[in-house]
């Protein structure tokens, strides 16, 4: 019996050790993530804050650092993100509704599902080149806000579809069954039961996807090119630039002052991302109060 007891105890020690090891690894992971975020923020604010003023926010780009500003890129980004939302949200939600509520369960549907997941993993520059060939050249929209928004829409569509599918799947089957039992048609069930319940999830997912799109530099450089834009877009067919392009541009300048400008641009971009993410969290909390 004493041998038996000792064996048990040794295993307990090993188990406890494994437990603490995992804990240490997890905490280290969080620590590294937070630390790099803090370092990034600290660096951006240290370099950028001196440059962040009204003049910076209300001027166009310039060869002279003290006169350069972010106006064109800021409004360009807002234009692109709004247009992207308008295009991608209905398309993505529509595709998700079709796949979840209407599509027959066959090989073709599984093939489509699989490839949507694959599309979500395609590097963004590939979408940039596709957009350049398709929207800028073939459809002759030029290097316009519209081309940029269409390209970003393609980029985030897979994510929106996947997130929306998840939201649709989380609608209880019992609710659908209840509506069918009252004599509802498939469209009525979709419209009155599925969409209202899945909507917050769809919207949150789309907003988060948009916040990713707003930070994309590679495909936007392919579409909009690194050129000087001394105006804000006034329509979807105008030329444009966006924050990531402007930041990229400044980082590439030889004078060290432009690094400060780039950092100030990063602060503006981060502020934009944070407001968008807060909006998503706000929407989620607002609708999630309804528990069952």
């Amino acid at each position, binding site marked *: 019996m004493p041998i038996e007891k000792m064996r048990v105890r040794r295993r307990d020690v090993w188990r406890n050790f494994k437990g603490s090891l995992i804990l240490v690894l997890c905490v280290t992971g969080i620590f590294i993530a937070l630390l790099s975020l803090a370092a990034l923020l600290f660096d951006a604010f240290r370099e950028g804050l001196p440059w962040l003023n009204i003049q910076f926010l209300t001027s166009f780009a310039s060869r002279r650092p003290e006169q350069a500003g972010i106006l064109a890129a800021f409004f360009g980004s807002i234009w692109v993100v709004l247009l992207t939302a308008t295009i991608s949200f209905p398309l993505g939600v529509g595709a998700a509704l079709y796949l979840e509520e209407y599509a027959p369960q066959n090989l073709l549907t599984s093939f489509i599902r699989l490839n949507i997941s694959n599309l979500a993993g395609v590097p963004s520059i590939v979408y940039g080149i596709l957009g350049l060939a398709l929207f800028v050249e073939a459809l002759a929209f030029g290097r316009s806000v519209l081309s940029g928004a269409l390209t970003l829409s393609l980029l985030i569509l897979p994510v929106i579809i996947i997130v929306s599918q998840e939201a649709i799947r989380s609608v209880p089957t019992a*609710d*659908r069954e209840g509506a069918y*039992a*009252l*004599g509802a048609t498939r469209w009525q069930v979709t419209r009155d039961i599925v969409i209202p319940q899945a909507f917050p999830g769809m919207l949150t997912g789309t907003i988060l996807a948009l916040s990713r799109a707003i930070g994309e530099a590679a495909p936007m450089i392919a579409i909009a090119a690194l050129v000087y834009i001394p105006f804000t877009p006034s329509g979807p067919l105008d030329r444009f630039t966006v924050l990531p392009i402007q930041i990229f541009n400044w980082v590439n300048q030889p004078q060290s002052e432009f690094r400060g400008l780039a950092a100030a641009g990063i602060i503006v971009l981060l502020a934009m991302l944070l407001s968008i993410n807060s909006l998503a969290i706000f929407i989620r909390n607002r609708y999630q109060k309804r528990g069952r």
Partner: protein
Amino acid sequence: MDKEKIDIRSLNVWFGKKHVIKDVNMKIRPNAVTAVMGPSGCGKTTLIKAINRLNELIKISRTTGEIFIDKQNVYGKEIDVFELRRQVGMVFQKPNPFPKSIYENVAFGPKLHKMANDKELDAIVEKSLRGGALWDEVKDRLKDDAFSLSGGQQQRLCIARALAVEPDIILMDEPCSALDPAATAEIETLIRELRQRYTVIVVTHNLQQAARISDFTAFMYVGKLVEYGLTKNLFEKPENELVEQYITGKFG
């Protein structure tokens, strides 16, 4: 039984390769409560869902045979399945109110079928909630969320919701199995009242409940209708040995 509301003839249902309902023939009386009893998995729920064709929501299901409601075959080509489901209401095992207000839950059906304008809708909602024996408890809080109600109230709301589209027949799939004894008693009283105006079919595997609330009882076993008749007769002198064993608690 000469006068029947529902006439089920050689009904067979498969889910994939699984034969769930095996050649069931059954005539159901109007304005009576018919209980469908039997051990779990014997096909009770599938049988009643064949009446409002709700089995069709499961893509692998296949149904043969005929079910006549007022002499009309619900599996006939000319049948509008959505209209059929309006005429045959259903209440489920677990209360499933929609995540909407109490009012909107009851008004949901009438709105789907465009049965009323706004004023008439108020009247329909009140009438249905009275029918579901819920009106007095909720008349001052119609705008409240349906989930703020207790389990028993939610189930009565689901009954009111089914009544709102003016069905003739009400199917109930173990309506009390998720409820406490007090709520169960309320629902049972309500079922007895509903009998006066509707044809009610209740699935249950609670023997006492079947005895208390039903006029007729059907006993099913592995997809077959084993015995069917007046509840009193079935409980007092069952003809089939299986039924006797079930009633006396030898299996279940």
